[in-house]
């Protein structure tokens, strides 16, 4: 099919050949094809070079399956889940194509890892290939971004909660974290705007960038030429070249067929499941990311408090930088991996650490209540997938509009908020658990711990929590589950649900003075709002600022002391006005002790006090004076309250 033979035998040319010539004269297709297929590979074709083509194939497969899924998918919080259920359960071939797409993303990560390892071990990035490497590094991150954004789109439980955690992780970035989270979510909460944003990123922005960088990557690759085996000079190849076609093309085709067979087999035999629709109020759900994010997920467990920045920004940032700048760090032309031990060792350590973290994460999840909960979730997902398709029904006009984006809020959440505020949790952990300088944010805490772990920590705080003045929370199982339900929605719009006071749920009796008393012991520290106008004597539970001293300075001191009393959460145990609750009433005790004795036990609680959960009061001497002033103003609790207070004192 060269020019000469065409001219020599014009008569024998068929219509197809003439059409092709017509096309070729206008496009240069033949020349282009020639250039593509005759790329010389120094040292010849090898199986080791198949990964790049494999990645390109998977990307095309993802585009084809992705576009087909978009035919039925709708990116709104109300309908996304139903449309995916429709694709999976109803549309012919839908489960297969969705599975291909889902497994395709995993295949992408695996082949990406192989492509990276091959390029690294062969030192193929050396010799004027810095930009080629960097474009590849960028592509790797774009692929990870595809995985992250695609995971939310089905809007099932795991999608929702994994994205909640993922976007919160981004929030840990210094300075821009909060902005970043809000930008990704389209606001404070994960809702329909989040779905839109992730959809646009997943379907338009990231794929377009990937196409762009694939073009750059291939262009730069062709410019530099294949680097050949590790013993080849990467700049001036000396080994005998072999064209890309046919042997390398055949190898590539074989690999691509292998990928296709594996994906199709998996998709056919184990179609991916779809869980129940996202329910933000579910406090028990344990989110787990896709397997390729598990190392990062496990990694985050090691970092707490102020060190989080190191764990999720500094170290990954340095690793990412080293990854991007590899050709500048490992710059000698020496390609054999054993002759450049430092880069080889560094990569080996990182790869080993990632595998270790991933495996550890899996093993962690195989134990105790976590394993049970994960099994339950898997079971729920299977059950939902097996259930027949239920169409989305338009809400009727008279129906209460669905409270999107937060979804249905369990009444427990409101009760939990009441408990959270009444027990003074908000005093240290901030309004809606957003955190203050005294205590950390509680947003996302249910993602870090299971319900049982949380309950154990609340009932028996660990030494670190105790050192931060976190008291043990002694609540009835019902109150505890309400509190944990509330903790689960922190950081979402549901956290702003109107608070229900647990006291309203329990029986309130009115005594002879028409003052409300609470019969439920576990609620003893909850204040009942009482109207001062109808109350003759000062109520021990809702005491205004101390007023019973004539001295102005004394009042000021006592007022400051009351603030300290509240801020340090003393009232959590000792009651609003030191009237007692979980811990003894203070007035009788204070009356027995001198100022110096008081200071001493406050700074260094006795063993008995410690056993009851009393932390040492870390106060300056001035603050101590203020606190004492306040304590001296505390009224003696009314006698009938005392048995209640004593009976709930922790032993």
């Amino acid at each position, binding site marked *: 099919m060269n020019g000469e033979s065409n001219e020599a035998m014009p008569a024998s040319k068929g219509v197809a050949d003439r059409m092709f010539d017509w096309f070729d004269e206008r496009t240069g297709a033949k020349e282009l094809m020639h250039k593509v297929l005759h790329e010389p590979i120094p040292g010849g074709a090898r199986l080791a070079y198949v990964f790049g083509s494999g990645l390109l194939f998977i990307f095309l497969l993802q585009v*084809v399956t992705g576009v087909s899924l978009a035919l039925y998918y709708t990116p709104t919080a109300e309908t996304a889940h139903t449309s995916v259920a429709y694709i999976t359960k*109803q549309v012919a071939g839908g489960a297969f*194509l969705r599975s291909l797409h889902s497994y395709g993303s995993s295949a992408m990560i695996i082949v990406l890892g192989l492509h990276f390892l091959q390029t690294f071990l062969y030192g193929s990035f050396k010799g004027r290939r810095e930009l080629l490497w960097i474009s590849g590094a960028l592509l790797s991150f774009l692929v990870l971004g595809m995985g992250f954004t695609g995971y939310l789109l089905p809007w099932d439980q795991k999608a929702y909660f994994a994205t909640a955690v993922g976007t919160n992780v981004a929030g840990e970035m210094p300075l821009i974290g909060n902005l970043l989270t809000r930008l990704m979510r389209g606001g404070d909460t994960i809702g329909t705007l989040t779905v839109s944003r992730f959809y646009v990123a997943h379907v338009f922005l990231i794929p377009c960038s990937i196409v762009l960088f694939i073009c750059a990557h291939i262009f730069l690759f062709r410019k530099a030429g294949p680097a050949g085996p590790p013993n080849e000079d990467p700049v001036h190849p000396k080994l005998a070249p072999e064209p890309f076609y046919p042997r390398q093309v055949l190898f590539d085709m074989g690999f691509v067929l292998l990928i296709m067979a594996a994906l199709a087999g998996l998709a056919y035999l184990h179609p991916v499941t779809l869980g129940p629709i996202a329910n933000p109020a579910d406090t028990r759900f344990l989110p787990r990311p896709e397997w390729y994010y598990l190392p990062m997920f496990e990694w985050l467990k090691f970092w707490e408090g102020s060190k989080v920045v190191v764990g999720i920004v500094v170290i990954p940032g340095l690793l990412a930088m080293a990854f991007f700048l590899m050709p500048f760090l490992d710059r000698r032309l020496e390609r054999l991996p054993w002759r450049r031990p430092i880069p080889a060792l560094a990569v080996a350590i990182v790869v080993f650490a990632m595998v270790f973290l991933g495996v550890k994460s899996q093993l962690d999840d195989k134990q105790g209540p976590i394993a049970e909960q994960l099994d339950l979730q898997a079971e729920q997902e299977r059950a939902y997938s097996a259930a027949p398709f239920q169409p989305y*029904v338009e809400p009727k006009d008279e129906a209460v509009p669905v409270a999107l984006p937060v979804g249905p809020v369990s009444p427990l959440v409101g009760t939990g908020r009441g408990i959270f505020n009444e027990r003074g949790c908000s005093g240290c952990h901030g309004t809606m658990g957003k955190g203050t300088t005294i205590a950390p944010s509680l947003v996302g805490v249910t993602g870090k711990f299971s319900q049982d772990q949380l309950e154990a920590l609340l009932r028996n705080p660990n030494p670190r929590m105790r050192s931060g003045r976190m008291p043990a929370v002694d609540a009835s199982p019902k109150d505890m589950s309400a509190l944990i339900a509330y903790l689960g929605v922190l950081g979402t719009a549901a956290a702003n649900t109107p608070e229900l006071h647990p006291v309203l749920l329990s029986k309130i009796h009115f005594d002879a003075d028409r003052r409300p008393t609470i019969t439920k012991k576990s609620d003893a520290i909850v204040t009942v709002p009482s109207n001062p106008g109808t109350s003759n004597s000062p109520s021990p539970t809702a005491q205004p600022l101390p007023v019973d001293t004539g001295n102005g300075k004394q009042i000021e001191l006592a007022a400051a002391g009351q603030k300290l009393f509240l801020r340090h959460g003393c009232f959590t145990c000792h009651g609003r006005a030191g009237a007692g609750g979980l811990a003894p009433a203070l007035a009788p005790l204070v009356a027995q002790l001198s100022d110096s004795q008081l200071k001493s036990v406050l700074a260094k609680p006795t063993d008995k006090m410690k056993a009851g959960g009393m932390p040492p009061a870390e106060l300056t001497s001035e603050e101590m004076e203020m606190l004492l002033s306040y304590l001296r103003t505390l009224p003696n609790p009314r006698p009938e309250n005392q048995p209640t207070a004593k009976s709930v004192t922790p032993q």
Partner: protein
Amino acid sequence: MTHDGNGNHFSEGCAGCAAREVVDVGKRSFIGAALGAGSMLIGAIVGAPLFRFVLYPVYAKGASVQWSDVGDASEFEKNDGPVSKTVSLVQRDGWREVVSEQSVYVNRAQNGQLQVMSAICPHLGCSVAWQASQGKFVCPCHGGQFGPDGEHISGPPPRGLDILKAEVQNGKLRVQFKYFRSNVPDQESLG
């Protein structure tokens, strides 16, 4: 293929390559066929389900037969010509379920039986209206005309108005609303 001193290479092709191309025509075409077969295989694995996936709504079976209430049968005792009624029916619209409303005409036919007609013109699907003054249905789009029993009088429609399956049960008139293929002489139910 050759390289210059700067590592750039020229794609004119090497002599050896060209020679092999001429010599190994049989081998080449075998390789070409193998690659073609591989591509076809991948195309089939993805293409077949994709084909079914895309065509699904075209072949999907509609909802099962359902009855919609039209009103009390006693309403239609008097024979003053066709009466317009609205029936609501639950329809599947892809993955959602919607309640849609359709107009029907109830008429006491010459044989004394109640009949329910679809108000959708069998020509091209406009809504026909009963013109009491003219004593006939007139389609506002292309001027098709139908008698009170739905029979075709004049104009482009290829058949009369579509009579729907209806029955009186416990004094209530109810109807099976259906759509029919437009512009064909015989009534063909859709879905």
